[in-house]
């Protein structure tokens, strides 16, 4: 009796606010450490914030072409070192201040300020030298060298235009809680790990052509965190949330058996989930061992087991849907016999009694480091099992979060380290394969690769010439057996079927929230 009364009391106290039909709940799957797009690097932050900011240009997800955004038009000097943008008039930030050339300069300088420690945006600007305000609505970016990916960079939320007044008012540590842009949605509130709220911007009148709608159709969008993949399907079924990404494949299959939900498998361009071999640490310093470790893993079986029927098996340093991918240098299929032969040839002989391989008394021992997010621990365990079957001793360490992954990588005590990376322009390969690259986790120092990367992005803007360079790189990566590619990333987004108009940007992650409508 008391229990029933208590339950009723609790329920009335704890039940959610009534939804008036124009509110929507969107599930996020990672809790970023910071969400200032200029300073932080998370992809998750772009899901809400791509609609808070407009960018100078936009990329059409269907054609890949760049179209006007806050810049009405632009010109590039023939040698590719100066980009001049003519800005749109009459655009206002959510705080009422006017968008102009000075605002562009303020944003770029905020990113360039070394005290602000930009983790991503600053690298997306490449060899940027300076920004010049020519008049109120004309701004020029001067580069030290040509930089082919610049327009791609400028089309992303990391280089979205924020109100200079807000940037100055809050400063780099607090701005993330008070973001002000010009986009179709206004930033209302952010409580880390709990929720982030956006509200429609009623004054939005400068929608770029990539959007299908010119005005937002939903009054409030609340983003909630479902970091634990086990809870996402349940949250959809209970009606707690209308859209969630990164649904586990079994749940995706189950949910879409009914017509209550719709599955949107979104292939994400970038670098597939891959295991980089440490070429500076034995035994993976030996190319034969690396080749054997690639041949000894049944990649197709791993991808089907962990990711179901949705993800393609990766075939190189770039995902198949990425610019610069070539199928010419696909990685070899599983071949246990060939792998055993290579290891024998490299001197790692199997002991009949234990089945373990040794060379001059030393065991073939491998240490794997894998991040904890997504299905990475599962994949890592299957790789561990495969390498154990080859006769290696394998240990596995799971890094909680990207920061710890980087920290473990810095210590250098790993033979293979797993990571995937998102990006639209193939210049994303530079930090991973250039000798001085910040993600050079193979440890390889090869001047030929450095030259190739420079040629591809900083000497020409000609797409055909660029793609040829990246194909050569793919060939070198395969021949040197630098990595074990696993799967091209496909984000399984499941939405309530009353959600209409769900589309994503060229990057794959960022929904065009302005296009969303709620059906009956």
């Amino acid at each position, binding site marked *: 009796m008391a229990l029933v009364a208590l339950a009723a009391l609790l329920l009335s106290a704890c039940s959610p606010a009534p939804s008036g039909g124009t509110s929507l709940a969107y599930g996020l799957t990672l809790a970023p450490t910071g969400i200032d797009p200029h300073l932080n690097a998370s992809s998750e932050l772009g899901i809400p914030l791509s609609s808070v900011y407009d960018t100078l240009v936009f990329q059409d997800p269907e054609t890949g072409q760049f179209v006007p955004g806050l810049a009405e038009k632009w010109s590039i000097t023939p040698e590719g070192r100066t980009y001049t943008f003519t800005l749109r008039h009459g655009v206002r930030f959510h705080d009422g201040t006017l968008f102009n050339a000075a605002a562009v300069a303020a944003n770029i300088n905020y990113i360039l300020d070394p005290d602000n420690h930009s983790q991503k945006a600053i690298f997306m600007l490449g060899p940027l030298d300076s920004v010049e305000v020519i008049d109120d609505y004309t701004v020029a970016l001067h580069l030290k060298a040509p930089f082919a990916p610049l327009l791609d960079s400028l089309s992303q939320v990391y280089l979205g235009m924020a109100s200079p007044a807000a940037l100055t008012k809050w400063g780099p540590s607090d701005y993330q809680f008070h973001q002000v842009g010009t986009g179709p949605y206004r930033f209302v509130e952010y409580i880390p790990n709990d929720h982030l709220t956006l509200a429609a911007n009623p004054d939005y009148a400068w929608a770029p052509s990539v959007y299908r709608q010119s005005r937002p159709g939903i009054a409030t969008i609340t983003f909630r965190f479902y970091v*634990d*993949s*086990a809870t996402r*399907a349940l949250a959809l079924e209970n009606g707690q949330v209308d859209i969630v990404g990164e649904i*586990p494949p*079994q*749940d995706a299959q*189950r949910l879409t058996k009914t017509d209550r939900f719709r599955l949107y498998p979104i292939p994400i361009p970038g670098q597939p989930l891959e295991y980089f071999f440490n070429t500076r640490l034995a035994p993976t310093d030996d190319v034969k061992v690396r080749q054997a470790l690639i041949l000894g893993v049944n990649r197709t079986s791993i991808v089907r*087991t*962990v990711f179901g029927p949705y993800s393609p098996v990766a075939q190189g340093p770039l995902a198949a849907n990425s610019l610069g991918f070539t199928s010419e240098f696909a990685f070899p299929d599983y071949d246990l016999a060939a792998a055993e032969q290579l290891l024998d040839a490299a001197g790692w002989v199997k002991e009949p009694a234990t089945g373990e391989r040794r060379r001059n008394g030393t065991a073939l021992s491998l240490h794997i480091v894998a991040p*904890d997010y997504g299905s990475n*621990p*599962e994949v*890592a*365990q*299957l790789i*561990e*099992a495969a390498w*154990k*079957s080859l006769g290696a001793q394998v*240990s*596995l*360490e*799971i890094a*909680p979060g990207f920061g710890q992954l980087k920290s473990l990588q810095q210590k250098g005590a790993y033979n293979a380290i797993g990571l995937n990376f998102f990006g639209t322009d193939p210049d994303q390969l530079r930090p991973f394969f250039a000798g001085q690259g910040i993600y050079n986790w193979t440890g390889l120092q090869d001047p030929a690769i450095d030259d190739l990367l420079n040629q591809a992005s900083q000497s020409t803007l000609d797409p055909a010439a660029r793609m040829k360079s990246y194909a050569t790189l793919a060939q070198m990566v395969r021949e040197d057996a630098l990595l074990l590619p696993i799967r091209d990333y496909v984000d399984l987004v499941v939405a309530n079927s009353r959600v209409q108009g769900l589309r994503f940007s060229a990057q794959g992650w960022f929904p065009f929230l302005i296009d969303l409508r709620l059906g009956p």
Partner: protein
Amino acid sequence: MKAGVGVWLAGGWLCLAVGASLFAPLISVHGPQLPVGPALSPSAPGLPLGADALGRDFLARLLYGGRLSLWACVLASALSLIGGGLAGLAAAAVGGVIERLVLWSANSALAIPGLLLAMLLVAAMGPGLPTVVLAVGLGGTPGMARITRSIFLQLRQSSYVSAAEALGGGRRWIAVRHLLPNARPHLLSLATTNYAWAFMGITTLTFLGLAGDPSIPEWGAMLNDGRSHLFDAPHLALWPGLAIGLTILAVHTLGTWQARLRPGD
């Protein structure tokens, strides 16, 4: 006191669990780490308990997991029993400053709930199964010190110890010769209770994902893994959940029975 059906069942389960995990390589055909069957199947030929999400023999994982879960707790509870017991013995036998110091530090440490104290230690030492065992062991030490002290104190006041003291026995001699042997039944029952706490603590911490390498099977970690497939493969949560639940019940039943056996209570 006669042992009831419950006690027999409890003892039976523990013997079964310990025996099965000891002889895991003989019982299960497959190892716990290689994928051998269709992922998520509840049962398949040769796989009586089916396969987990990666196609590994679930029976093998449960058995090998039992080795870790059941034995890690023995280590952890031995640590708190020995550490806490020695501190308690020192406090009771020596008294004075030592006693006050032991009591005071035990009470201060007890101001942090045991599980949180263990987590603090994991935070300091970094995740991993050895850390978890150490943390749970140390986390149980202060409570153990306090209880053992009061037990030893009671024994010290008993007549034969007073007699020994009157006869001029040294403090250390009294502690070793009289206090320890007489405390044995109490310590045994304490050990059982402590084992239950260690088991709960360790499975909780590994459930929270603090065990490190996920390919090593451990009941708490397996229960957590099962959470992801609660609706498409409930057997993944069912078996480790059952193993944990039955073990806790069994240890509690034995503990209660032992407490009733103790003379003078």
